[in-house]
């Protein structure tokens, strides 16, 4: 197999945030390569710098060291080719769903598309997320799930090279979330965008991703492990529930999150356990040496 061309590449990314008590190192030596059309999830405990990674790719943050290349070009400012779906939808509350998408479409395609084409494109994107029935409602008139759909439509309407999603379904109830996950898989199958999604939800990560990037706890967080999810698409959540491979992947992620990387406030207990494990290992070694002798 030939080496696929590098699409999105984070190289040796460090980021320091200035605080009154000196710089805070949020990320240290983050390396990540993402291929075109790949769906990658970032998972990790809160405060581990997942959002920071996403914001660096988005161009909203600048890496202190290292950098981010998209198709060979350095990312140093935000742009519509790296559209973001924000955690809390971030729709403009004074505009209707249609107008929210329109703002993005006009900004990105205002000069290339005619008025009719713009209208058609907006409506097409809203129907992709099944929002065509409520496109002239304002955000406060629709439910949380619908708002997030509009947020996704707005991002998709920019025809991004990379779609960045910051916990897109985090604030939704389980049923709505499942529904939107299915929609997202459908859309991704059709458009074949590169997607980077942040999530807390292990099932979501395994169900949606081609690869799961697991991050270590901050400060100075970095990529801990990368898990390839080799499940055929289209994926069906019900069929997968009994799939041993699926459950194995879930188990891997859970092990990483709850054994290898405990929450920061559980660190003290984790450390003593580590010591115990180290002692066990030494004893094992001693035993085998005894046997050899």
């Amino acid at each position, binding site marked *: 197999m030939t080496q696929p061309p590098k699409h999105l590449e984070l190289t040796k990314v460090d980021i320091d945030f200035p605080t009154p008590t000196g710089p805070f190192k949020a990320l240290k030596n983050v390396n990540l390569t993402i291929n075109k059309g790949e769906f990658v999830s970032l998972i990790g405990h809160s405060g581990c710098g997942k959002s920071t990674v996403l914001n660096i790719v*988005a*161009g*909203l943050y600048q890496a202190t060291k290292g950098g981010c290349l998209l198709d060979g070009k350095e990312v140093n*400012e*935000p*742009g*519509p080719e*790296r*559209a*973001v779906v*924000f955690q*809390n939808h*971030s729709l*403009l*509350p*004074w505009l209707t769903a249609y107008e929210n998408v329109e*703002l*993005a479409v006009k*900004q*990105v395609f205002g000069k290339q598309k005619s008025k009719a084409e713009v209208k058609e494109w907006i409506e097409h994107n809203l129907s992709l997320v099944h929002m065509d029935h409520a496109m002239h409602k*304002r955000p*406060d008139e629709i439910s949380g799930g619908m708002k997030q759909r509009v947020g996704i439509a707005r991002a998709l309407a*920019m025809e991004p090279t990379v779609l960045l999603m910051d916990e897109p379904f985090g604030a939704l109830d389980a049923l709505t979330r499942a529904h939107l996950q299915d929609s997202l898989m459908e859309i991704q199958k059709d458009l074949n965008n590169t997607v980077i999604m942040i999530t807390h939800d292990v099932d979501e990560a395994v169900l949606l991703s081609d690869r799961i990037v697991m991050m270590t706890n901050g400060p100075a967080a970095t990529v801990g492990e990368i898990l390839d999810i080799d499940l055929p698409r289209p994926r069906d959540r019900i069929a997968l529930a009994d799939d041993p491979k699926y459950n194995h992947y879930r188990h891997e992620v859970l092990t990483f999150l709850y054994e290898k990387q405990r929450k920061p406030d559980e660190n003290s207990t984790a450390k003593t356990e580590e010591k115990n494990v180290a002692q066990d290992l030494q004893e094992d070694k001693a035993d085998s040496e005894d046997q050899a002798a």
Partner: protein
Amino acid sequence: MSNTTALSGVSAFLENPKANLGKLSKSLLVPLIGLLAFLFIWEIGAKSIHTSLGAFPGPMAVYEQSVNLIKDHNREREKEVAFYKRQEERNAKKLAKSPDAKIKVRPYTGKPTFFDQIGTSLITVLAGFVLASLIAIPAGIMIGLNQTLYSAFNPLIQLFKPVSPLAWLPLVTMVVSAVYVSKDPMFAKSFITSLITVSLCCLWPTLLNTAVGVSGISKDLQNVSQVLRLSWLAHVTKIVLPSSIPMIFTGLRLSLGIAWMVLIAAEMLAQNPGLGKFVWDEFQNGSSSSLGRIMVAVLVIGLIGFLLDRVMLLIQKKVSWDKTAVLR
């Protein structure tokens, strides 16, 4: 507002008399009782206060004077009409004698009535308010968007905000008479003086509220603007302005209230035409009806201030995107 609630109360009452009796009594009866109690205490209290110009005017005296003021106004209008008629006739005669005769059209120079003064005051306050808003809103946006500008201007704003109009007035008067020199002035000097004084005093609430509103825009919306690569102008018109509209209107309403109060004081002190001058003139006049007339002016000033605020509220409701917000 009490009017509209009272009206809606009446119509609701007609639809369902029993259930809405309590509601109606609350929306209509209670304010009415309050008003009657006030009139009663006023009437009693007024009788026991004796001034050098006679007893303090009670509600009845005030009513009489308001009728008189309307009569005065009508009489003045009749005089004016008669004046122009005479002038026209005179000119027509002159023209009939010799077609080349020079015709002079003199404006009527009668004493401005109470209602003329109300008109003058309203025009002045609105002009001053509009001028102040035209300065304060853009300046507030600039200051709110830029932390450095905010730090630079904040001490100045805090310094000038509490300054009384009466302190500005002499300076403004002198500057206007020195700078605003024109043979055929578009506006009277007194108008310019009042306008600038009003603007100077009512600038600050709008400026501060706009700046606070603009600097408080959610980070998410700013990120959206950045991802979309909105130009500076588009960022301001599409994101900044709409999201700070509620705060801007809070400022505007405060400003208009201040503008109205400042104007009356400024007119009084500077003898510039308007309601303030009317009050001062009546005070100097010192007739038995003067206190009653001043009282009419006080009530009218209050009423107009109230109506101005209501108008702003209506505009705010029309403009604001957040229809769920409780505006009062």
